[in-house]
């Protein structure tokens, strides 16, 4: 990890980074878990520790195994090998109705023949809690999710957002140690999604329950999470905070999966005092980047250099700064979004890079137009060095 760039975290304030606190033990431990369906491997020996109070997201595309992993946490699938430990107890073989885990389903799965109230109270009834307490707790949780007035309605009469809140209430009322959420925002429209994202985060902080979310939407993952694991074809590609995953991807898959990125293949030319010089054929120039981790840096090794579009500056004049990589380009395409503009610039040898920039100056005239000759530049520290 590059301490130079990231602002140094206040190491005393570990409240927001429980995984760094040696005195806290993990809430969930996934130990070398694999799941095979016949000969098909859905989850391939993954291990993970999730700490209490985290809002942890499992991010992956379809077929990545994320849903299978979630179902194993809930108890609907049994791992082929490995173990799952929740709150210190081995839950690998424990059925779902005996786990201190509750789940919010993607389809909400509200019981259609019961009212909202009855739906929420169902879990409490099964625990044998007395009627009085059931009523109190149900009313409480419905207030929390602002569904109090609709308590007597049936699921068929609820909107999407309302159904989701009931599903959430139902999953929270039993005060589980771990709450699982399967694509919680997928069924909502854009406005509602944004609103719900913040509601979820607030709710989680207020209740202090550990959340684990499964999603394919990386924006969602970035906003919600304390930490993310990027999953691909049954394996974990990287575990880290949104910032770590976004700015310090471990490999090409993660770099490409989360957010937009420019990926260029290059060959190592030389290494000196931590800075690697590479020759990039696609770009037709030498690029520099800081070495990270313990990569093989022999001259001649193939690598990838990656730069995020927002880290690239676009200007009419050539910048004179040794700490920056500068290239000449022509503006091929531009998209004006109001708050920002996206550019596709063509370098001298034909390679196209994506650049994005905030429109800081208030003007309705574009500062850069189609076919303009421009200079694009980025700080050497912005370049990510990845294995081939």
């Amino acid at each position, binding site marked *: 990890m590059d301490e130079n760039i990231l602002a140094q975290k206040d190491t005393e304030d570990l409240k927001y980074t429980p995984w760094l606190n040696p005195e806290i033990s993990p809430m969930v431990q996934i130990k070398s878990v694999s799941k095979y369906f016949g000969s098909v491997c859905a989850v391939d020996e993954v291990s993970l520790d999730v700490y209490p109070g985290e809002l942890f997201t499992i991010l992956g595309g*379809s077929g990545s195994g994320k*849903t299978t992993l979630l179902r194993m946490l809930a108890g609907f699938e*049994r791992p082929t090998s490995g173990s799952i430990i929740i709150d210190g107890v081995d839950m690998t073989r424990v*059925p779902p109705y005996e786990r201190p885990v509750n789940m919010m389903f993607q389809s909400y799965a509200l019981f259609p023949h019961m009212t909202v109230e009855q739906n929420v109270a169902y879990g409490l009834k099964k625990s044998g809690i007395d009627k009085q307490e059931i009523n109190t707790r149900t009313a409480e949780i419905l207030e929390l999710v602002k569904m109090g007035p609709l308590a007597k309605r049936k699921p068929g009469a609820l909107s999407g957002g309302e159904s989701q809140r009931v599903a959430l209430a139902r999953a929270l009322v039993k005060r589980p140690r771990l709450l699982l959420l399967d694509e919680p925002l997928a069924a909502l429209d854009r406005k509602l999604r944004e609103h719900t994202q913040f509601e979820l985060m607030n709710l989680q902080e207020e209740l202090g329950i550990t959340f684990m979310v499964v999603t394919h939407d990386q924006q969602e993952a970035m906003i919600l999470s304390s930490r993310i694991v990027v999953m691909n074809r049954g394996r974990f590609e990287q575990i880290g905070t949104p910032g770590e995953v976004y700015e310090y991807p471990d490999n090409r898959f993660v770099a490409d999966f989360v957010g937009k990125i420019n990926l260029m293949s290059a060959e190592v030319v030389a290494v000196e005092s931590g800075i690697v010089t590479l020759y990039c054929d696609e770009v037709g120039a030498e690029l520099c980047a800081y070495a990270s981790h313990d990569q093989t840096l022999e001259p001649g090794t193939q690598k990838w250099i990656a730069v995020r579009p927002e880290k690239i500056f676009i200007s009419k004049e050539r910048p004179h700064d040794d700490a920056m990589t500068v290239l000449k380009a022509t503006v091929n395409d531009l998209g004006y979004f109001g708050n920002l503009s996206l550019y596709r610039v063509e370098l001298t040898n034909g390679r196209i890079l994506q650049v994005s920039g905030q429109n800081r100056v208030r003007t309705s005239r574009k500062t850069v137009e189609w076919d303009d000759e421009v200079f694009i530049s980025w700080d050497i520290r912005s370049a990510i060095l990845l294995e081939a």
Partner: protein
Amino acid sequence: MKKLFSNLQRADGRRQWLRFALVLPYLWLLLFFLAPFAIILKISLADPLVAQPPFTALLDWAATGWQRIHVTVDNYLFLFQDRYYITIYLSSIKLAAISTLLCLLLGYPVAYFIARQKPRLRNLLLLGIIVPFWISFLLRVYAWIGLLNSHGVINNFLMWSGIIDQPLTLIYNDFAVYVGIVYSYLPFMILPLYANLEKMNLDLQEAAADLGARPWQVFLNVTLPLSIPGIIAGCLLVFIPAIGEFIIPALLGGSDTLMIGRALWDEFFINRDWPVASAVSVVLLMILVIPMMWLQKTQSRAESNANGGAS
């Protein structure tokens, strides 16, 4: 059997109770559905006796304790040598096939029409098809006797209105059997066809029309091919039971209406030749096996489509 139970136990605990509860109906079906077929097969290989039961036992216990297996294929040979039975099988297939075709010709337009109506009218029309389906089969066939009789409603009407002088022979012949089968099995044809046509995406037909296809071309190129699963299901649901129909030929057919169901009844109750009756049944079953397996395949495919794939 042991393997079956051990497999049930090793299963994941979630539906354990269901696996155990399943045992009772399973055994029931084995005993009351499957075993009888084994018995029919056995009897079809026996000789008739004037005794109770009227056939030779499969295993013979001689005084010395030897077992002899008494098997004969005489009954089957009898079936195939005598032109009579071959004719009956073919006649049954012919009658069933033509009836199925008639059902299709009548049922398809109706199903098509219903599927294109607005939901309210659609439900009403469907109800109209379903009500007769629930009314006793026997009574509905019986109703035709009164209509088709030489002095029944239809003949009375035709004579009264002067269209004919002599009553038409509408009953106790093949014609009446066709009417009977089509009438009784029409709902079985319409319902699967309707189910298929209703699910069909209207956009496809509109797209074809947009691309320049005339109405009859839209039908031929888009609607008809897509409705083939429904057609197959409907036809099989009519054809298979129609071959072995008994009540309709018994009440509406003539003495020269040859259907295997009636022949079987006569062989059993009148001739009391149980081995031959069994052989007739076995051969009938073999004729039906392929269409039945076909039907099962289309049903299971339809169900797996409805259930969807893995997420």
